[in-house]
């Protein structure tokens, strides 16, 4: 009995001691302890992440999931790195510090940094016309004579729409020079320079060519000498085939890329019980290594450590990438703003995110196989970088832990004011699309009306989408009016541009498609009547029939553009494919034009036929719609798109 009492007393004493000492060790928060901008202490962030990492389910899934590598830094110090998943699921190769991934569009920021380096050296004027730095008659598809500046290009306001043609090379032996590649796939300039924001890979690569020409060095050499070497980035390559760093190429070939698909099904839980749930499947896409001819816009490949080194340099007060601190400050000071506010929408090629306590800068990236994220706060010196070999697994999980919540409530307040968008009523479409040539029709299939948007006012002409107290978007938009009277809704470096007279244009496109489908049935009906010897042909019946066939072929050619793009992972058509489709459309246009004239003659001619006038008129209308649509949507224009 005594023994039991002693033991009980000992347990109670131990419990009291434990409880009494806890507040002083675990619950007390050291005021001097480093805190993330979100307010959470670094030690708490790390411990919570380590708990997640150590969870048995996480350890188990890490062996069967694609890789996601994330890193948090503060100034020069790496606070936490998480290597999750496999770079090769089939061979169970776990991600580690030597795993390399493509950084995608983060590569563009290397071009912007290079531009700023040359600017501080006085070799480049950001506000001069870029034609000063390019060979004579470099551009073939310029619509406007207005000067295009490097500031415009850094803000994605050069005026070019999305490029239509493929710019990848299977064989490095066929790889053209950067200048040739840019000329080969030059997109149409559809917007006035300096006005409309339209994200452009082509323009970013053009900036790379300017770096090359102004510095007198090959772009790859320039990046190595002026960025990689000063920062000690030994595990990063920039050349399209990665031959500038054989180690990176060797490591990259070991990385397999994946698509993630989710579906309902049965799976075994932690206790070995089969239960219903969501099953994730990673489908291998192979190495997804491609040689991009426009390499300055997205070819950089490297380790998470090197990406962190680069991001750390941009928050470093010693400004290792620039001679003057002012250059770095300018780079991250904002180059375009939302309306009349001081909220930057974009900063010399860097994305800007507004959190409750901090404003971060950075860029995201996506290639055929990988996705990447870089975000840092130059004031608190905190930063997060992430890389993944699965396009469906964007590596920004730690951003909210480090930076906190996005700054929605601070802008609109608790009792938000509704923004009136009725003066801007109309249909808008994303500018990052094909606005000219063979693919112009795509623009009209993605438009939307602002009348359906519930907006909360941030400032005059600045708003964010607001559904309810619980559901709101954190993306800020501002409304701009362009010189041609059209409105634009701007977010970051993207813009939704107003389409004037959208519904008649959409009807024309729908009419074109309907005529194609109707022609198929008309031809079938004609065949039936021919077999039954009941035909009563109009004048020039063969031309009219050829016109109906041309409508079907033209519709098929239009759909084939989408078919080729989908099968080619949306990287565009080859020149040959574009030319073939364009020539087919030109022939169809000519045939439909002739059929239009034939139908008009048949209508005027006094040939007595059953329903002759109605048939001639419907034939005339069908051909008129088809010809008008083909001309308006430039379905034949394969040379400037």
């Amino acid at each position, binding site marked *: 009995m005594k023994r039991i009492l002693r033991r009980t007393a000992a347990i109670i004493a131990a419990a009291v001691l434990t409880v009494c000492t806890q507040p002083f060790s675990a619950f007390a928060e050291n005021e001097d302890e480093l805190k993330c901008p979100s307010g959470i202490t670094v030690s708490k962030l790390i411990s919570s992440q380590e708990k997640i990492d150590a969870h048995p389910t996480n350890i188990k899934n890490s062996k069967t999931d694609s890789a996601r590598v994330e890193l948090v830094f503060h100034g020069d110090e790496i606070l936490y790195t998480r290597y999750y998943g496999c770079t090769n699921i089939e061979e169970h190769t776990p991600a580690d510090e030597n795993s390399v991934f493509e950084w995608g569009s983060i590569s563009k920021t290397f071009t912007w940094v290079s531009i700023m380096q040359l600017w501080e050296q006085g070799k480049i004027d950001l506000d001069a016309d870029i034609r000063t730095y390019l060979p004579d008659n470099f551009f073939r598809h310029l619509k406007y004579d207005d000067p295009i500046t490097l500031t415009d290009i850094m803000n994605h306001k050069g005026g070019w729409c999305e490029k239509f043609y493929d710019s990848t090379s299977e064989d490095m032996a066929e790889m053209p020079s950067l200048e040739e590649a840019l000329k080969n796939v030059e997109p149409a300039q559809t917007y006035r320079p300096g006005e409309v924001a339209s994200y452009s890979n082509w323009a970013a690569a053009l900036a790379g060519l300017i770096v090359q020409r102004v510095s007198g060095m090959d772009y790859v050499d320039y990046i190595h000498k002026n960025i990689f070497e000063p920062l000690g980035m030994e595990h990063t390559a920039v050349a399209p085939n990665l031959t500038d760093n054989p180690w990176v190429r060797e490591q990259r070939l070991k990385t397999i890329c994946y698509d993630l698909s989710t579906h309902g099904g049965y799976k075994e839980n932690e206790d070995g019980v089969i239960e219903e749930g969501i099953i994730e499947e990673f489908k291998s896409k192979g190495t997804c290594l491609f040689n991009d001819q426009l390499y300055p816009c997205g070819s950089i490949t490297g380790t998470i450590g090197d990406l962190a080194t680069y991001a750390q340099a941009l928050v470093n007060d010693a400004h290792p990438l620039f001679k003057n601190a002012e250059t770095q400050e300018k780079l991250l000071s904002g180059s375009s703003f939302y309306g009349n506010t001081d909220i930057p929408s974009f900063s010399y090629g860097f994305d800007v995110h507004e959190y409750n306590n901090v404003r971060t800068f950075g860029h995201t990236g996506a290639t055929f196989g990988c996705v990447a994220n870089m975000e840092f706060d130059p004031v608190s010196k905190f930063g997060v970088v992430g890389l993944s070999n699965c396009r469906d697994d964007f590596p920004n999980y730690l951003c909210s832990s480090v930076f906190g919540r996005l700054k929605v409530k601070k802008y609109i307040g608790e009792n938000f004011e509704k923004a009136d968008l009725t003066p801007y009523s109309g249909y808008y479409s994303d500018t990052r699309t094909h606005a000219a040539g063979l693919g112009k029709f795509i623009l009209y299939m993605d438009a939307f*009306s602002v009348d359906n948007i519930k907006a909360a006012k941030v400032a005059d002409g600045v708003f964010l*989408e607001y559904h309810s107290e619980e*559901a709101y978007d954190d993306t800020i938009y501002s409304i701009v009016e362009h010189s041609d009277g059209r409105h634009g809704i701007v977010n970051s470096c993207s813009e939704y541009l107003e389409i004037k007279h959208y519904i008649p244009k959409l009807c024309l496109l729908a009419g074109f498609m309907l005529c194609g489908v109707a022609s198929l049935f008309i031809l079938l009906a004609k065949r*039936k009547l021919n077999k*039954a010897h009941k035909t009563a042909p109009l004048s020039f019946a063969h031309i009219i029939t050829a016109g109906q066939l041309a409508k079907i072929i033209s519709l098929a050619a239009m*759909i084939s553009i989408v078919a080729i793009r989908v*099968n080619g992972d949306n990287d565009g058509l080859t020149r040959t494919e574009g030319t073939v489709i364009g020539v087919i459309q030109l022939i169809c246009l000519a045939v439909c034009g002739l059929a239009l004239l034939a139908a008009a003659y048949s209508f005027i001619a006094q040939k007595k036929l059953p329903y002759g006038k109605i048939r001639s008129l419907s034939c005339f209308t069908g051909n008129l719609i088809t010809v008008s649509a083909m001309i308006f949507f430039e379905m034949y224009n394969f040379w400037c798109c």
Partner: protein
Amino acid sequence: MKKIINLMRVDLISAKGRNKGNFFLIFALTAIFVVLGMITEAIFMVFSIVVLGVMLVPFITMAEKTHNAGKIFTVIPTDRKSIVISRFALTTGIYTVFSVIIFILYLIMEKFSDFHTSVISKDISNLYEVSSGFGTGIQMRAMTNSIFWLIFAVTLMIMAGQHRKYFKKGISSKSNSLLRSFLKFLGGIAIFYAVTAAIILIFNIDILKPTLIVLVNMLIALAAPMNGLLLSIILIFIGFGFTLYQLICSVVDYEAREL
């Protein structure tokens, strides 16, 4: 024109006959869906037009099976083309008028949707609006309107197909019974899904995907403006266009057929 109207009368008279059971069946089924739409979600009323559409053609031609009334057309002084046109015009007319009435009823019930149980609840509607994001998705109202006229057009095409089959092959006790035609309709949907699944499996979607992308994008683009009115007009045009095509083919088939 008068000849065609007279032929329609003949059809209506012959259909009246002893088809009360079938008439009651159609009436009951359409009424069930109308009531269902009134007390739950207004869009469910669209099923009433499907029931009417699918059963109307067999109902009109039923008298020929039960009363051998098909012979009437061999003795009355008229051409076969007029018979085909009158039959198409009668069924299409009844179906269109009924669909318009149901659509008006649907619009009225939509106005009072707050006062009756909503199956597609407000939460789901809100979630849809939020997930569509920045006006890029079509509005729920535009979508339901478009669905109504899509179903109208598809049913119209099925009716035209039933007519053509009748004029080509005539009536048989098996093929044109009401239940059988309804089961065939369901079977057709099952076959469509099976064939689509087979093509997806065999061709790994590569062939279908781009066409579907164009089609779906175009449908969404057309459905977005004016609460789906634009897409609805186009769907109605497609429905009547296909009916016209089947009408021409039916005339040729019927004229070539030995009666």
